Structures are given as C-alpha cells and as structure tokens.
C-alpha cells in the first residue's frame, strides 16, 4: 500500500536515454534544420496516434462533464436565470456576484465553510498522525486496528449522519448518556441544535469519519522512512517524543500536504452529511456554501445565483489544488 502513494504521481515521460545515468554533456547542434525536422517526426513517431483511442474517449468525457460544465456554470452565473424558464445568454453581467456580496447569508456560509475547512483539516490530520504513530509501534493485530479505524471511510455520509444524529441525541444519545454517567451532566448539551456547538459537533463527526484516511496516508509516509533513522536517533539518545518531533514528523511533509489537500477539498464540497442532518436550510450556525448553493439552485430555483456560489466554491478549490498540482509538476512528479 505504501508504494502506492509514492507511485501515485509516477513518472511521466520516460527519460530518453535508457542508460538511465548521466546524460552526455554534449554540445549544441549546429545543424538546426535537421533538428527541426526530427522534432516533427518525433512527434508523429511517438505513438501519439496509437495512444489516442485509449485516452481520448475518457478525456472527452472529462472535458465535457467536468471542464465543459465548469465553463458553462460560469456562464450561467453571469445570467439572471431563475424559475422555470431557460437561461438568457444574451445579456451577461456580474449582477449575481454583486447580489452575493451583499447577501449576509453568503457571508455566514463562507465563514462557516472556512471554519469547517480549517478546523476539520487540522484536527483530522492531528488525530490521523497520532493514530499512525500508535499503529506503527509494531503492535499485534495491526490489521484489525487499521481495519476498524478506516471503517467509517467506507460508509455513506447518509449512513454516518444518521448514526451521529442518534449519537448526539440530547436525551438518549450515547454521547450525553455517557457524559451523564460520569457526572458531567452540565456538559450534556443539545449538540446539533445548539448553535454554539452544532458546527463543532459536525466537525467532530467528520473527524471520526476521515481520521482513518489520514492514518493510512501517514502510515505510508512512516513506513517509507528507513528503520536506520529510528535507530540512529535512539543511538543519539533522543527520547521517543523528541525523535518523532525532530526526526520523523518533519519527513512526513509530503504526506501532510497530500492529505491536507484532500481534506480541504472535501470540506469545500461537503454536502451529503450536513444535508442529511440539517436539510437544505440549516440556519446560520451550520450553513455552508455547498449547501447554500444547492438550496438556492435546486430549492429556490435561483439557478444563476446558485451557479455564482458554485463558481466561488470552484475558485476556492482551485486555490487549494492549483498550488498543489504546480508543486507536483515542478517536482516532475506528474
């Protein structure tokens, strides 16, 4: 499993010289025209044609459904389309975006989205890291523990939302029953309906669902660190905590980056879980952009307005993945 992550953005083009070793430092070519001719031929000879039937159909599907749809969505967001009619593409304006900026609901949802994005990502990464370190202690039944920790990831958000609604039930839910049984009655809040706690309760439940994923990613990172480094740190007399802080965790940066990107993008598109818990109109404490977008477009039929919110969501996602992909590309990992 661990190789997977590192293989993931595997090699792109195979280095041309199969010697694989140092390329000759050879000078530049004086015969310009021959080089130009060969480039053209290289392009034709390089099996582009043979490879087309394989990647072009899926690429077209993605082009249409993903990128075409994104572009179309932007165009729709510039119209004033709402209700049952068809969009009028003849007069495009930023009216929807102006409306959005003056809509207090939008700002509340944006704020909640950011809180969710940051808090969820941070706590989930930390818990996942902790679990990965614990599981990496050469324990017995490692597979069983790993399987249990990752189990929530295999469940639908509809399912987990129903579980957590029950867990959070103020009177007879497990959380409050447990709190009362240890004498913490004053902490037994109505977690989901109390605006002070509802977003935190959602974040906690999502952390439950996603920390196993982070564990898997970190575990792969940990296993890629040679045992000698643990031994060297021990020989240097470092305590366990210092060893992890100074030697091991700094080497998990790549794992952290990729897991954080996935978590942040998830936080932006999180919909199912909140929708099942709170419906399309969750109220200011748990309203987030993705739910607001759905509400505006598919409940209020403010299609253009919904598209404008969706465009903002897309740009936010781009803000997360753009740098990540650029990083991957400049490292030559794509």
């Amino acid at each position, binding site marked *: 499993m661990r*190789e997977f992550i590192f293989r993931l953005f595997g090699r792109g083009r195979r280095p041309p010289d199969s010697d694989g070793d140092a390329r000759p430092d050879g000078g530049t070519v004086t015969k310009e025209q021959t080089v130009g001719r060969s480039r053209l031929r290289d392009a034709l000879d390089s099996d582009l044609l043979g490879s087309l039937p394989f990647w072009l159909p899926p690429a077209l599907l993605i082009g249409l459904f993903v990128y075409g749809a994104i572009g179309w969505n932007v165009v729709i967001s510039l119209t004033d389309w709402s209700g049952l009619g068809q969009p009028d593409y003849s007069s495009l304006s930023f009216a929807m975006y102006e409306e959005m900026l003056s809509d207090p609901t939008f700002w509340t949802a944006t704020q909640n989205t950011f809180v969710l994005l940051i808090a969820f990502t941070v706590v989930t990464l930390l818990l996942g890291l902790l679990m990965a370190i614990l599981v990496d202690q050469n324990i017995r039944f490692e597979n069983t523990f790993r399987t249990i920790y990752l189990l929530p990831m295999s469940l639908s958000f509809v399912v987990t939302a129903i579980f957590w609604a029950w867990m959070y039930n103020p009177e007879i839910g497990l959380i409050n029953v447990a709190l009362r049984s240890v004498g913490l009655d004053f902490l037994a809040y109505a977690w989901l309906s109390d605006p002070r706690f509802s977003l935190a309760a959602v974040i906690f439940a999502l952390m439950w669902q996603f920390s196993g994923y982070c564990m898997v990613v970190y575990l792969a990172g940990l296993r890629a660190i040679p045992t000698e480094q643990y031994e060297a740190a021990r020989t240097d007399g470092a305590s366990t905590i210092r060893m992890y802080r100074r030697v091991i965790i700094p080497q998990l940066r790549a794992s952290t980056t990729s897991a954080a990107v996935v978590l942040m993008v998830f936080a932006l598109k999180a919909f199912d879980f909140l929708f099942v818990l709170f419906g399309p109109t969750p109220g200011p404490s748990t309203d987030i952009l993705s739910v607001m977008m759905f509400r505006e477009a598919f409940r209020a039929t403010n299609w253009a307005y919904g598209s404008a919110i969706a465009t903002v969501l897309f740009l936010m996602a781009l803000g997360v993945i753009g740098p990540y*992909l650029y990083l991957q590309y400049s490292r030559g990992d794509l």
Partner: protein
Amino acid sequence: MSSQTANDSTSGIDFQRIGLYAVLVVMAAFYLSPLESGLMTAFKSQEAFIGSTPFVPPPPSGFTVEPWFEAWSRLQLGVFNSLLLAIPATALSAIFGSLAAYGLTNVDWRGQVAVIMLFVAGIFVPYQSVLVPLTQFWTMVGLEDILAGVPLLAERTGLLELIITHTAYGIPICTILFRSYYATIDPEMLEAARLDGATVARIYWKIILPLSVPIFAVTLIYQFTQIWNDLLFALVLLTSPENQVVTLSLNQLQGSMVQQYNLQMAGAFVAALPTLVVYVLFGEQFAEGVAGES
C-alpha cells in the same frame, strides 16, 4: 521500529506497552461506538431504546427484529436501483480509467503531462460547480425521448443519466489509480513487445490487461463504494420515485421517521451493508484506493 520494541519487551511487565494497547483499544471503541450503538438500537423496540442505554444490548422484553423488516421494505427498491447504478458505473469508469492510464503512461508521446494535469485536477473539482449545467445538459439531451422506443430503458432514464455522470466523474480517480500502477511496469518489457511485433492495442490486450488484475480489484472496490455512497448527484438528477437509489430512500426514511431511531438505524445498516461487506472482504484494496486519492 522493531528495534525499539525489542528493547522494550525485555523488561517483564511493560507498562508503556500496556498503555499503548489501552489507547488503541479505546480508539477502536470510539470508532465503533456509533455503529455499535446503532446496531443495538436497531434490535430494540420503541420503548426499549428510549428507556435503555444506547450501547447496551436489548433486554429480552424489548428485543425485536421488526425495524429490520420495516427498513428492508422501505429500502429494497433503493438497494436494487443502487446496484443497477453502481455496478455498471463502477465497471465503466474502471475500464475507461485503465485505458486512459495506459494511453497516458505506457505509450510515449509529447504533451502527456498537460492531459494528465486535467485528469488529476478532475479528482478535486467540487460537484457543486457542475450541478446546474449538469441538470441543464440532461434536460437538453432529453434522454427519455431518445429512448422512448425502448420502454425498458426509458423508464430507467434517470439511472442511465446517473450512470453516465458517475462514470465521467469517476474516470479521473480511476485513471490516477491505474496510472500509479502502470508506471511500475517495466518499460523494457513493453519495448520487447513492440519489437516482438505487437501494436499499441495488442500490447494493452495481451500484456497490460492480464497484469492489471490487482489494480482492477482496488479500483472497482473503491469506486463501487464511492458511487454507492453518493447522495448529491442522485438528489439533483433522479426525478422519478421508481429510480430512487438507496441513499435517497434512506434520507427520506430518516426525514419521515424522525423519532423512530430503531428503524433509522436498521435502515442505515441495510443501506451500508453492501459497502460493509465489500470493506470487510477487501479492506486492503479499499485502503489502497483511499490512499490513492491523495
């Protein structure tokens, strides 16, 4: 890590080690508690779950399997439709992913990176940013009218749209999963096949495909879980109640039976059962798929 534990275990009772296992077990309890309390509740009568602690097994007087029958009768159509959706959509996106990964990894041509970029970025696109055009697109296509001559398919228009949509959005992650695997295939072996006279297509068919079995397992399992679990696309694309998938049915059940937690829990388990079975049987492959998303 082995060295460390070897040292630790030399001293008789190792409190550090006991503490470690205690933490691991408590964590396991934390991860399982929602499922455990849900499972217990699903076997309790209304009075029993209101009157008892959630994670405690039902008392003999309060034991019932009624919620399961009730949940099954409400969800069976959804389960059937979800299978009808998830199986073809999973297979299609995996096949497309395998083809694309081969064309973008093992066959060498310039400009691959740009195409690969678009595939990778496709994994991360929030569905919300395509929802409105997507519904508009399927309205304009009018699949139902196109299929009017084939009533069997026409009734299933919503599911067909959903299959195609899930296939398209599943291709990026499938491609990346396959690509990471294909990148480890010895390029000299493929060159040997070229020198042996095999064409690009023959190499795929005779060499790549037979070698792809493990990664097909990973991709199919991961993608099946994803499609089975999705709510959002179904919510905006499915209009007719006959085509309802299980996540929709479950959401409705939850909305209409607000206080019947035993029924809700049984329903959640019914809806989760296929993915749970897949997960228990193929946990390793699922973990590989999950890890591949990063």
